[in-house]
């Protein structure tokens, strides 16, 4: 087990480095010059920006150095836990991350928990009641759910709930340790929107693997022993059926961060996703590249964790 973990970990490091190179290269193929853009700044009226000013800006941004030096500097700073500063506000990215990440993390956790609460019971139900209306209807709902653009669902839910119930979530975000009720009421809707989207895929996965597992010999044995069907389903069948569901949840958890990109914007939540979108809109390059790298690293760590869990749950994988 330890060797397996070490192997997986060793593979993660070059992947992170490669992702950093990729992000860096994409950010550098920009046709427009960042320095000019910033030198012009907000003052769009002033067309005449002196070449000297642009040159000075390029110097301060370190854009005059050769590419590999720029990359090395970025990595060096990152290694020293210096994540750079925003081009516009001069605010350190580190502060941005500390201030905004907890919200995204909380939202992801709530959405994932909710999706399990929905998907696993329904997935089991559809597998047990295969080819009956109790199978068709949830399957229909989940396949339609996969086709709905997430942000659109968010917009509809928010607008119509506000119109019908006259209830509007507070506009300013409150942290959970100060006002848990307020915080929960704010994150509930986005978590439901995100969670149902995740549940759509998980339900299908649970159903498919349950159907496979229920045909296995040991299930027949368990039934023949006279165990109650509840024990057979939840203790015997679910244990093996859960593995692919966990894998897919892990992949989803990594993707949740980019899913919350859109959801946070819809619900006006100041999380990491919204911060990334803002940075893209402002072309705030140091912020974009660091945030996207951070998201990527989080994605890799989650997948690594899932792989390890997978090896733990199913010993056959570890030794393969």
């Amino acid at each position, binding site marked *: 087990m330890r060797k397996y973990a070490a192997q997986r970990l060793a593979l993660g490091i070059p992947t992170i480095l490669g992702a950093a190179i990729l992000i860096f290269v994409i950010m550098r193929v920009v046709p427009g010059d960042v320095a000019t853009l910033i030198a012009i700044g907000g003052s769009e009226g002033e067309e005449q920006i002196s070449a000297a000013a642009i040159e000075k800006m390029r110097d301060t941004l370190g854009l005059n150095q050769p590419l590999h030096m720029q990359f090395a500097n970025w990595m060096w700073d990152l290694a020293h836990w210096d994540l750079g500063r925003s081009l516009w506000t001069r605010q350190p990215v580190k502060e941005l991350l500390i201030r905004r990440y907890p919200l995204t993390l909380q939202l992801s956790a709530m959405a994932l928990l909710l999706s399990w609460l929905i998907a696993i019971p329904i997935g089991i139900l559809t597998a047990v009641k295969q080819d009956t209306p109790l199978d068709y209807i949830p399957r229909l709902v989940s396949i339609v759910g996969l*086709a709905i653009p997430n942000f659109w669902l968010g917009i509809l839910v928010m607008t119509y709930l506000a119109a019908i119930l006259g209830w509007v979530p507070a506009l300013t975000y409150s942290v959970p340790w100060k006002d848990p009720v307020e915080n929960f009421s704010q994150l509930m809707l986005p978590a439901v929107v995100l969670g149902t989207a995740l549940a759509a895929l998980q339900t299908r996965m649970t159903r*498919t693997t349950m159907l496979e597992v229920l045909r296995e010999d040991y299930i027949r044995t368990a039934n023949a022993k006279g165990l109650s069907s509840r024990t057979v389903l939840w203790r015997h069948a679910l244990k093996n059926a859960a593995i692919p569901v966990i894998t897919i949840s892990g992949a989803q958890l990594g*993707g949740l961060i980019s899913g919350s990109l859109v959801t946070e914007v819809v619900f006006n939540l100041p999380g990491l996703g919204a911060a990334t979108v803002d940075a893209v809109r402002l072309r705030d390059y140091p912020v974009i590249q660091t945030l996207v790298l951070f998201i*990527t690293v989080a994605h890799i760590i989650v997948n690594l964790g899932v792989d390890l869990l997978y090896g733990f749950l199913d010993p056959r994988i570890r030794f393969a």
Partner: protein
Amino acid sequence: MEVEPRAPSTQNVLNLRGARWQYQRAWLRRFVIYKPLGAVGAGVVLLMFFLSIFGSFLTPYNPIDMDFLARLESPNLRHPLGTDLFGRDVLSNIIGGAKISIYVGFASVILGTGFGAIWGLTSGYAGGKFDMYSQRLIDILQSIPTLALALVIVASLGSSLNNIIVAISIGLIATSARVVRASAISIRNMDYIAAAISTGAGWRRIVFRHVLPNSLPPYLVVATAGLGIAILQEASLSFLGVGVPPPHPSWGRMLSGMGRDYLTIAPWLSLAPGIAIVVVVLAFNLVGDAFRDMFDPRLRGSERR
């Protein structure tokens, strides 16, 4: 695919063609009977193709024509799906948007999964160092969440129709490369490949006559799933303000810009494009599901309905 024989002179060739046609008809009938949902999805996809080719002759109005006397009209006989803030006909925009959605979907899928498939095929068939390095590169590509990657690419290249296609297609490379590689590896170890080698077939013949056609089914499944993903991605990018730029009509832009602002007083502005997206993505997913069930023998018993 049916190929027109150059000289259908002998009776034999005609019989062969007849038999093949009969086989294809039987296959089609089986598809419709056993996969009714897949057939419905395929019907919607065909309708989309029809609209995207002939849509400009069918639209009652020019999608970008403004009529300030008919602003924010609710659905009526002259405008079946109503009009927007500038008096543009919503139905015409939906039909026009079908073309863009189909274009974005197919172009990015052909580009992204096509590149991925060639990469996967080469890497799976060649094996060795090339395969190992390719796998690590694909790991890297897959490690960046697709929407974040697309957002960064569009931000860096600027949002034009073609840049959006590039951004979406890059996110589709990894999955198709993985899937095609896996099937190429399993095919490479089949007995019939050894047989082909023993008869003296060159690598070209083996790859193009044996490995490529046999790894097509899993590729098709990934590609149809990719179509739905691409259309949803375009909608998300539009919502974030970096989607398909005007004057192209875009479903994503319709439902996120004006559609959102006027949701309570003019719900048709958001509902029409939203439902259009759901129907089309659903159609692609249904076709993809039907393909998967037919091609994956493991699922054949349990899901054949």
